[in-house]
């Protein structure tokens, strides 16, 4: 990512056919003007937006993402946007973990009648992303480092365990389980955060040993974590069968990605 002298934010918006895409059309029909920085990708429902796709937008170097759906309770497919809401909440958590400002992901709800509001949402978000600067400006990381972390984040969101947890959130928090209990939202959020942090850590380590086998100390330097933290995650990865010992150097085992 080179710093452009006159930086213009590059933004992708995922808009749902029934509400937000319609509001963008209405803005057009009513001639409400807004900056041309957003390019819209149409989906049928905002729930189609897999969190890994949001990460991919940032991995490709764009500066902002908008995910707009119907107002909660009015989703054309009834419950889709409740899933969008929870998935995007998780996505913001991991963006922060990766070192990016979660403000670069906007999640909002617009009805088909809100043409003017759509235009002002785009104006406001474009300005916000402009102030944040090009992707990564808010971090101390170099572009390659940020990209690696985003890739780790994307892989974490692709993991079965994270997807399973966020998919069950609604049921756990709103309906009762077999014992007649509900999980309080704060408790769930804690659980989700821990899960994300764990998966993110795992993926970072796996990415760091992609090319060469490394020792715990070398990995710790690469991912900028303490050797204790790295060791804890290594144990987890060994347990998952994702990592194996490639050899020993001195007293330290060197780890690589497991084959097969």
């Amino acid at each position: 990512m080179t710093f452009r002298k006159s930086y213009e934010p590059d933004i992708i918006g995922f808009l749902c056919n029934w509400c937000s895409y319609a509001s963008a059309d209405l803005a057009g029909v009513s001639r409400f003007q807004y900056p041309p920085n957003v390019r819209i990708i149409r989906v049928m429902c905002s729930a189609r937006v897999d969190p890994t796709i949001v990460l991919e937008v940032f991995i490709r170097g764009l500066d902002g993402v908008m995910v707009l759906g119907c107002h909660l309770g009015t989703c054309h497919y009834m419950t889709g946007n409740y899933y969008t809401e929870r998935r995007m909440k998780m996505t913001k958590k991991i963006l922060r973990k990766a070192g990016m400002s979660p403000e670069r992901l906007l999640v909002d709800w617009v009805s088909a009648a809100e043409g003017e509001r759509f235009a002002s949402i785009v104006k406001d978000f474009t300005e916000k992303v402009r102030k944040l600067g090009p992707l990564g400006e808010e971090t101390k990381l170099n572009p390659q480092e940020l990209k690696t972390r985003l890739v780790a984040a994307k892989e974490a969101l692709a993991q079965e365990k994270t997807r399973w947890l966020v998919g069950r959130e609604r049921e756990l928090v709103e309906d009762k389980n077999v014992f007649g209990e509900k999980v309080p939202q704060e408790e769930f959020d804690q659980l989700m955060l821990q899960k994300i942090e764990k998966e993110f850590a795992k993926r970072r380590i796996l990415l760091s040993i992609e090319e060469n086998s490394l020792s715990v100390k070398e990995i710790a330097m690469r991912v900028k974590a303490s050797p204790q933290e790295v060791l804890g995650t290594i144990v987890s990865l060994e347990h998952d069968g994702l990592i194996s010992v490639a050899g020993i150097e001195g007293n330290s085992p060197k780890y690589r990605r497991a084959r097969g």
Partner: protein
Amino acid sequence: MNEVRAGVFICHCGTNIGGFLDVPELIEYASRLPSVVFTMDNKYTCSEVGLAEIRDGIAKNKLNRVVVASCTPRTHEPLFRSTCKDAGLNPYLFQFVNIRDQCSWVHMKDRERATEKAKALIRMGVARAVLLEPLEETEVEVNPYALVIGGGIAGMTCALSLANRGFEVKLVEKEDQLGGTLNNLYRLYPTDEEASKLVQAKSEELKKNAKIEILTSSKVKEVKGFVGNYDVTVRHGDEDRLFKAGVIIVATGAETLKPVDIYSYDGEHVVTQIELEGKLRQGKLTDKDTVVMIQCVDSRNEKRPYCSKVCCLTALKNAMLIKETNPDAQVFVLYRDMVTQGTKYEDYYGKARETGITFIKYSPERQPVVEKGLVKVFDELLGEELALPCDLVVLSTPIVAHKDSEDLAKLLKVPVDENGFFLEAHVKLRPVDFATDGIYLCGSAHWPANIGESVSQAYGAASRASIPMSVGHVKTEPLIPVIDEDRCSGCSLCELTCPFKAIQLEETEEGRKAKVIAASCKGCGACGAGCPQKAITMQHFTDEQLLAQIVPLTEVKP
């Protein structure tokens, strides 16, 4: 179909696009995109001329992808898709790029940047088009048989109407006779007609109709399948009857709450309105000189916040009947709000007032107190505490869902709301449909309803149910998910996510796997975006097709 040959048609839309974007520059740009073999600009792509140019373009250049950059797919995608179809191209190999409503019309003051954006949008569109696959709409046959569950006024009306339309109907009723709540009522408002006569008339009509099979003392035991193809098991006496149905209508009604430990209810000196109707029918009220009715009993409170709608009118009706049998009787109605809406019912209220019934408004903070032979109430409008000696106290209790409605809900896999009433697909747009295709709802099973409303809803549900049966088939959504069974772990998250019951787990040789019910799927993609195994591919909105559109502006070369 190895080589992708894409044609890009860019519309001027008069001056709406042409006046704000550099269309020749867009054409030139599009022609340099990979896989694009043909480009053309049209004055109005949607005009007869424009559509002919698309058809010609496809034929002459052997195009196997068509991209139109013009207004909005929300109005024009069906038109261009069918134009492609006319030219022999699968309509799902068509891609729309919105450069008017979402570009030229909203960036009117910056031609250069608007054109740059349009280029990017066209590039995104072509990239997706290249990855599109042909899709087929298929049809699933619909059995022209209806199952109506519940033989009250709603069920009977619905069954008769569908039979009159020519469909075979099975009516399943758990009691040993038809009539439902009507069998507990005496006279009906606002016409004073006798409930038993109505039941008799309707039952006769039903029995005479050769297309209706009535199964009383029967309960639905199991329901499998989907719209058009339900396999139903009904327990009839001591045997199981199996049959096929195309559609199912739930008309199971509701019941009146029997008060427990409230207002000294004893079923004799303090009765419910239904018990009162029983007494009236048997002529047992001529000696009651003072009757006090209490409205909103154990209702419109925290436990049960809703208004049951029919109780005010029922009280008025019964109060007037008491006055009819015993003109000197004094009747007091203790109410919070008189709910007599519309034309006929407001008149009914007026009529009741004229017969000398006394209405006393009480507030929920100061509930009436019932002692033996006496009712104490604070009259909100007089501002005074009153003591009413009385011979009979009548409690208007709320309508509540049947205790077994949740069981039926589980059988049919349909939802109930927080009060136990069945939940419709959409409060306004689809009030008698369930979200699951092929199942419909009417009468008090949906919400407390009086007879007129139950009848309207019954006809409404019959109309909706008749649609798939009239057409004979349902079209399946082509934008459906495809399951990679090797990756599917049977975790059932997709089943949990889908509100249409369009993806369900089934036993296979390799264990439980997700299966798509194309006839019920709406193509939203919520399942696919959440699958922990990434075992689901959403046709026409695949991950690859979405990712192909993520093109940074830096890659959009001039």
